[in-house]
C-alpha cells in the first residue's frame, strides 16, 4: 500500500532556475463513463434479483459479486458508492446551494427503490463492500444473540451521525472512515488500511461484519426491504422444520417459528412489555437529550468550530504554537469575532441535529427492546426481512430445494 503520509516536498531548484511544473488535477470521470456506471448498477441489480429469486442461484450471485468487486471496487475505486451517496443526498437536502450529482442520486436511490420490491438484493452481490466480505467468509462462527442485537444498533447510530455531519458541512464520515476503499485504491492512511485488513480478517470468521454491524446504508435498505413484495423464501415447498437453513446462514438472519413460552413466563413477559411500552417515550427523550449533550463535541468535527476552539486556546495561552489552519486564519485578516460567531452558530446547529439523531436512535432502541419482548406469529423458518442480504446460501441447505432440483441428499 502507498500510505498517504509518504509524500515529500519538491526539490529546490533556486540556483539552477528550473521551473517546477504546476499542480494538475486529474480530470473528472467522463460523463459517458458515469452513464455506464449507472447502467451497470441497474443491470447488476436486475441480474441479482433474477439470480436470487428466479434462479435461486448462489453460484450466480458469487460470480456477480466477483464482478462487482472488480468493477465497482477496484476499477471504479469504490467511489461513488451507494453507502456514501446518502451523505450527498443529506447535504443536498440541508444546503440548497449544493447540487447533488446525478450519479449520487442514482447510486443512492436506485438500490433503495429496488429494495422496496426485492429487499436487500443490492447487498447480496452488487455492493462491492458486501461482496468482498462475502467472498472472504471461510469458516463462519455464530455471533451470540446477546451480542448480535446490541451490535445491530450501531449502524442506526452511524447513520444518524453520518447525516448530521453531512448536513451540517462537518464532512462525509462514511467516506473518511470507509475501510474498504483504501484497499480498492491501494492507497490510504495507515489506520484505514489496517482497519480494512482487520475487517477482512474478521470477515473470514464473522459473516459480513461491516454490513451487519456498521453499514448505515444497510439500515435504509433493511427498512425498505421490510415492505418488499418479493423476498427470500427459503423453501420452495412446505417447511419441514429441519433447521438446516438456520444453520446455513452465517448472518443470523433466519428466524425460527416461536416456541410457546413456559406458562410461568407469560405473565412476566406481558408485564415486561407493558413496562417497555410505557418507557418508550422516556427512552426516546433520554437518548434525544443525550444526543443534544454530545452536540457540542460533535461540532468539533467541523473545521470552523475546530479552528475557533484552537484560536481560543492559543489566545488564552493554553496551547503553544499555531497549527497550519490557525496560522492561515490569522494571516487571512478575518476578524476572530466573525469566526467565533460562525462557530457558535454551528454549535447550536449540532446540538439541534444531535437531539434529532438522539430521538431517532432512542426510537430504534425502544423498538428493538419491544421487538425482543414480543413474539411474532410464524409457522416456518423465515429470512428476516431487515437482516437478510439475499446471499442465497440457505436455498441449497433446504432438502425441499434439493428435491426440486433433483439433486441427491448429501450424506451427513
Amino acid at each position, binding site marked *: 500500500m502507498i500510505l498517504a503520509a509518504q509524500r515529500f516536498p519538491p526539490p529546490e531548484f533556486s540556483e539552477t532556475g528550473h521551473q517546477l511544473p504546476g499542480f494538475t488535477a486529474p480530470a473528472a470521470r467522463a460523463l459517458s463513463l458515469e452513464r455506464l456506471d449507472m447502467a451497470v448498477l441497474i443491470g447488476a441489480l436486475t441480474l441479482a434479483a433474477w439470480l436470487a429469486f428466479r434462479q435461486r442461484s448462489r453460484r450466480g450471485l458469487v460470480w456477480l459479486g466477483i464482478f462487482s468487486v472488480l468493477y465497482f471496487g477496484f476499477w471504479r475505486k469504490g467511489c461513488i458508492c451507494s453507502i456514501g451517496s446518502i451523505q450527498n443526498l443529506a447535504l443536498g437536502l440541508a444546503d440548497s446551494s449544493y447540487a447533488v450529482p446525478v450519479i449520487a442520486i442514482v447510486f443512492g436511490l436506485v438500490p433503495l427503490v429496488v429494495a422496496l420490491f426485492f429487499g436487500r438484493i443490492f447487498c447480496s452481490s452488487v455492493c462491492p463492500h458486501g461482496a468482498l466480505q462475502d467472498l472472504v467468509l471461510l469458516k463462519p462462527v455464530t455471533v451470540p444473540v446477546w451480542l448480535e442485537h446490541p451490535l445491530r444498533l450501531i449502524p442506526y447510530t452511524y447513520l444518524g451521525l453520518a447525516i448530521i455531519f453531512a448536513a451540517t458541512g462537518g464532512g462525509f464520515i462514511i467516506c473518511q472512515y470507509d475501510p474498504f476503499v483504501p484497499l480498492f485504491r491501494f492507497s490510504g492512511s495507515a489506520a484505514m488500511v489496517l482497519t480494512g485488513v482487520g475487517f477482512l480478517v474478521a470477515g473470514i470468521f464473522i459473516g459480513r461484519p461491516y454490513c451487519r454491524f456498521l453499514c448505515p446504508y444497510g439500515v435504509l435498505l433493511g427498512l425498505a426491504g421490510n415492505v418488499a413484495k418479493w423476498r427470500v423464501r427459503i423453501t420452495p415447498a412446505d417447511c419441514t422444520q429441519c433447521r438446516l437453513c438456520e444453520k446455513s446462514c452465517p448472518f443470523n438472519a433466519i428466524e425460527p417459528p416461536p416456541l410457546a413460552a413456559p406458562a410461568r413466563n407469560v405473565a412476566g413477559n406481558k408485564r415486561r412489555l407493558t413496562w417497555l411500552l410505557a418507557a418508550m417515550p422516556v427512552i426516546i427523550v433520554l437518548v434525544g437529550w443525550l444526543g443534544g449533550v454530545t452536540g457540542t463535541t460533535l461540532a468539533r468535527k467541523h473545521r470552523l468550530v475546530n479552528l475557533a476552539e484552537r484560536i*481560543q486556546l492559543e489566545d488564552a495561552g493554553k496551547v503553544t504554537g499555531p497549527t497550519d489552519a490557525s496560522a492561515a486564519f*490569522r*494571516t487571512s485578516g478575518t476578524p476572530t469575532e466573525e469566526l467565533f460567531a460562525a462557530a457558535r452558530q454551528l454549535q447550536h446547529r449540532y446540538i439541534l441535529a444531535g437531539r434529532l439523531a438522539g430521538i431517532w436512535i432512542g426510537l430504534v432502541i425502544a423498538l428493538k427492546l419491544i421487538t425482543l419482548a414480543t413474539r411474532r406469529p410464524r409457522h416456518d423458518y423465515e429470512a428476516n426481512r431487515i437482516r437478510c442480504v439475499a446471499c442465497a446460501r440457505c436455498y441449497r441447505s433446504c432438502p425441499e430445494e434439493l428435491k426440486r432440483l433433483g439433486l441427491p441428499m448429501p450424506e451427513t
Partner: protein
Amino acid sequence: MKSLLDQLAFALAIAAGIFVLLLAGLLGFNAVRGKVSTLVNSRQVVRLHEELRRQPKDETLKQHIRQLDLQLRQETFYRLSLSQNASRALLGGFVIFLLSAHWTRTRTKQFPNPLAWGARKPEQETRSTRWAQIGVTTGIALVAFTAVLATPVRLPEPLPVELPVSDEEYRQAWPAFRGPTGAGNAADANVALPWTIHWKTPVPLPGMSSPVIWSNSVFLTGASATEDRVFRFDADTGKLLWSAVVPGTKPPAPKTTDDTGLAAPTPVTDGRRVYAVFPDGMVAAFEFTGKPVWSKNIGPLDNSYGYAASPAFYRDRLLIQIDRGDAEEGQSKLLALDAKTGRELWQVKRPVAGSWTSPVIIERNGQQELLTCANPFVLAYNPVDGAELWRVKCLSDDCAPSPVLAGNVVVAVAPNNAVFGVQPGTTNVLWRTDEGVPDASSPVSDGVRCYFVDPNGLLTCWNATTGKSVWTQELGNQFYASPTIAGGTLILLSRKGVAHVLATGESYRLLGKFEFGEECNASPVPRGHRLFVRGKQNLFCVESAAK
C-alpha cells in the same frame, strides 16, 4: 481419503496463508521505516538546512545536502515502488489463499445432521432473548457513558462577542498618527480663527507623540527612563481620567536624542483598546478603562536618533515598522501583532535602512495597502499577510517624514535631497523637487495639492498631479510637527508653539496665528470645532469661534 488435488489445495492454502502473513509483516515494517527516514522526517536534512542558513555560502555543505536529498528521494521512490508491487503480490496471495481454502473447505465440509441437535428448548430461547435485552440495555448504558465522557465536563465558555468596529466609526475618529487615513486631513472639521483655549492640562510625562481621539477620549503617551505610560484625558474637560503604566519588565531606556525622546511613536486605537509602542521595545494594549490587556517586548528598536515610527492599525492587527541599521544588515522588518492578544501574526524583512517614518494605510483600487518609506524604497505591502505589493526606488538618507497619498500620487520625502511624486502600483516617479524639502515633518495634502515645510520654515505648495510648484512662502520658524488640514484650513505648528493658520488653495493666504506659549513638536489634531495640541508640558484644547 483425500485426492491429490485436495492435498495440493490444502498445501497451497497453507503456503499462501504464510506468504500473505509474511508479506503483510514486511509491508508494515516498510511503512514504519518509511515514516522515520523520509525526506520530510530526516533530522539530518533539517540540521544541514539550519547549518546552511548560518553559512549560506558553504559550497561543500550545499553539495552534501544535494547528495543526501537525492539519496533520500531515491530511497523513497524505491520504497514506494516496493510497496506497490508488494501490495499487488499480497492481493494475489490472498486470492490464492481464498480459492484454495474454499476448495479445501468445500471438499471437507460435512453436511449437518439435524437429528443430532435435539429439540429446541423454550427455556433456552427465552433465556437467550433475555440476554439479548440485557445486551441491548448494557449497550445503551455503555454508549451513554461514552457520550457523557466524550463531552467536556466544562463546556467551552461562550465565546466572547466583539463586533468589529465599522470603517465609518474608524474614519470618524482620529485613531492614529495623522488621522484615520494617515493623511493629516480632517475634511469635516472647522477650526476657523479666532481660537480660545477651552482647557489646558499638564501631561505627567514628556513625549513627542501626538494625541489620538476616539469619541470623547484623548490618548497620549509619555515616558521616562524608568516607566512608560499611556494617558487618557476627557476631551470635553481635559481631566486626566487615568494614567497607566505599561506592565512587564521595562527594558533599559535606549540612547536617543532630545529631539526624539522616549515616547515619540503616537498610540493608535480601534475604539476598544488603545495600543502604544515605546522606543525601549515595549508594546502594550489597554482597555478604555485603563486596564492592561497585554504587553510585550518586541525590541530592540534602537537606531541612531531613537525610535519614532507610530504603529498603524488594520482590521484586527497592529502593524509596526521597525527600520534599523543599514539596508545590507537586514535588521529592518515589518511586524503584525494580533490586536486582541499581542500574538505575532507575521513579520517580513524589509530591504531598507533605518528610518523614522510611520506606515500608513491607504486605499487604492478598492484594496487597502500599507504604505511605507525608508531609504531607498517607497514600499507597499498587503496588510493582511505582509506580502509586498510594489516598490519604487527613489529615497535616500535618514527618512523621517511619513508618506502621504495626494489624490492618486504618493508623496514621499528623501530629507536633504528631494520630494517625490510616485505613481502607486508602478515603479514610476512622476515628479521630484528639491525645493523646500522637509527633514522631520511630513507633507499634507488637500487631495489636489500637497504642502510641505522645510527645517528653515520654507512652506511649499505643490500640485501633486501635475508636479508643478503652486507657491512658496517663508514662514521664518522651525517645524517638527507635521502640518494638518481641517476643512479648508492649513495649520502649521512651529517648534516655538506658534500655530500658523492658512487657507488652502492656489495662493498663499495667512488667516492668522495663535501662540500656545510653549514648545510644540507633536502634530495638531482637529475634531469638529476643536483643535488638540500637545505642548512640551501641557495638552491643549482650543475651540474655534465658528462653533
